[in-house]
């Protein structure tokens, strides 16, 4: 008879609900954890706590109305979501928007990405116990939100794009304030690095944690900074450029380690790239119309239209199936969060619960984007 320590102190697997109300999920996401002691054996996501069936609502709405609903998916990339629907509709109508619209859309996209990554950096630190980052990040993000507020009246759910262009022209202060922000933020990212990036506790919590290989990233349909942290080149802005991304020079950030720290580094580096894109465009915003003429009732021709854009979280796909009426027959949003969530179980198995929190922070989930 064996009487080892392990036999005398047997452990048993048990279930723990993480969420739907859990601070590290930043929303209502329920994860059913199967754990043995503190080791994770299985993670089963249970969704729907903020499901509004946006896809079904789109089937009864006109094309202009659909744009409003997309704000409420990934509310931190609201302008990019709006743009995706507008691009799909413009593609269906074979409508060419002016250069001015393209450039303004691109600048605001990148400001949105900066605001989103900035918030992510703050809450990533907070999730790992460094509350200071949260205040630093929100201080700087506030400046972007102020620019948005002055431009279109909204700070978060912007709804600034309409099929055919923009709702109104940029504010006279826009260029100056954006430049001021870039100059300010350039001094702040090194501060972020000093505060968190080289922090030994932070490094120990993130390096080698939640490793995702390139093969798995592709198989699981992962996109965005998560994929690029694993060396999977998935940037839609590079591969299928839209708006003004074909006329700016920027690098696609790739890291090959695939761990939580690599995903962190990707986003920090992407913030520099976003600022570089804005700097290339901000001084020469071309003159032109801000709206191409569209009919009051938009009817897309019969057919299927698909538009891919790069949000702050990854690839957003908008699939519109039209039968030629004023409402779409079917709309599908391929949200980056949903596909990224599918890999969570795979990479967090065998780790500790605290590691799962670090992994989720590096995935930057926005729950309404997953649930739609």
């Amino acid at each position: 008879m064996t009487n080892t320590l392990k036999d005398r102190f047997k452990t048993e697997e048990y279930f723990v609900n993480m969420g739907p109300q859990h601070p590290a999920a930043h929303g209502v996401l329920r994860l059913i954890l199967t754990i043995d002691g503190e080791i994770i054996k299985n993670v089963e996501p249970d969704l729907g706590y903020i499901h509004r069936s946006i896809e079904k609502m789109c089937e009864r709405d006109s094309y202009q109305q659909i744009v409003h609903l997309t704000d409420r998916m990934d509310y931190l990339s609201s302008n990019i979501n709006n743009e995706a629907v507008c691009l799909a509709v413009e593609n269906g109508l074979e409508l060419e928007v002016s250069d001015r619209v393209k450039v303004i859309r691109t600048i605001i996209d990148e400001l949105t990405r900066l605001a989103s990554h900035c918030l992510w950096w703050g809450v990533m630190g907070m999730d790992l116990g460094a509350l200071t980052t949260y205040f630093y990040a929100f201080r700087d993000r506030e400046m972007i939100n102020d620019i948005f507020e002055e431009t279109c009246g909204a700070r978060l759910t912007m709804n600034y794009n309409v099929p055919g262009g923009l709702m109104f022209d940029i504010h006279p202060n826009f260029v100056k304030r954006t430049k001021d922000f870039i100059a300010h933020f350039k001094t702040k990212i090194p501060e972020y690095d000093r505060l968190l990036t080289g922090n030994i506790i932070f490094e120990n919590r993130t390096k080698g944690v939640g490793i995702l290989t390139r093969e798995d990233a592709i198989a699981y349909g992962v996109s965005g900074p998560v994929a690029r942290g694993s060396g999977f080149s998935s940037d839609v802005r590079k591969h299928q450029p839209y708006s003004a991304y074909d006329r700016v020079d920027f690098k696609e950030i790739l890291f090959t380690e695939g761990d939580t720290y690599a995903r962190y580094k990707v986003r920090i580096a992407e913030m520099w790239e976003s600022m570089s894109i804005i700097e290339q465009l901000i001084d020469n915003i071309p003159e032109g119309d801000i709206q191409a003429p569209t009919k009051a009732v938009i009817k897309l021709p019969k057919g299927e239209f698909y538009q891919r854009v790069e949000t702050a979280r990854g690839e957003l796909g908008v699939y519109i199936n039209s039968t030629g009426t004023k409402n779409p027959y079917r709309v599908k949003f391929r949200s980056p969060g949903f596909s990224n969530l599918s890999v969570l179980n795979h990479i967090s198995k065998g780790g500790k619960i605290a590691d799962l929190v670090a992994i989720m922070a590096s995935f930057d989930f926005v729950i309404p984007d997953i649930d739609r």
Partner: protein
Amino acid sequence: MSHQELQDKLTEFDLGLEFSEEPSQYLTLNVSKENLHFLMKKLKSDIDLSFDYAFCITGMDWGETLGVIYHLESTVHRHNLVVKVQTEDRENPTLDSVHDIWATAEFHELEVYDFFGIKFNNHPKLRRLFLTPEWSGYPLRKDYVDTANMIIK
């Protein structure tokens, strides 16, 4: 590969594939549900095609038929393909799962099952993902009626 080259290559498989005539940015084809799994396996493993990235899987209700649309991309060759499969059985629609080919399909098929009621053979654990287990009906079907929660115009 260009659309024409892709089409020629896929015709060689001799699976009775129907290519869509409708204008679209992607080459679109219809496959019978019997040939679905075989075709998908070939699409991924064939070295000239290597569709390794299934970026969008959409459930669909065409009225008469139910089905799934797969948007595929090759990260090696950077070409795209759209595959459609349909089933006429609305009472008990069943298709083959492709989760063994693309791991992401496991999650996307749960969504399709939840909203369209399409069952997937060989799926590891088919369950309601968004809705509660006791929910009756499949909301994204065109004939779904819910007088309490839906505004019919």
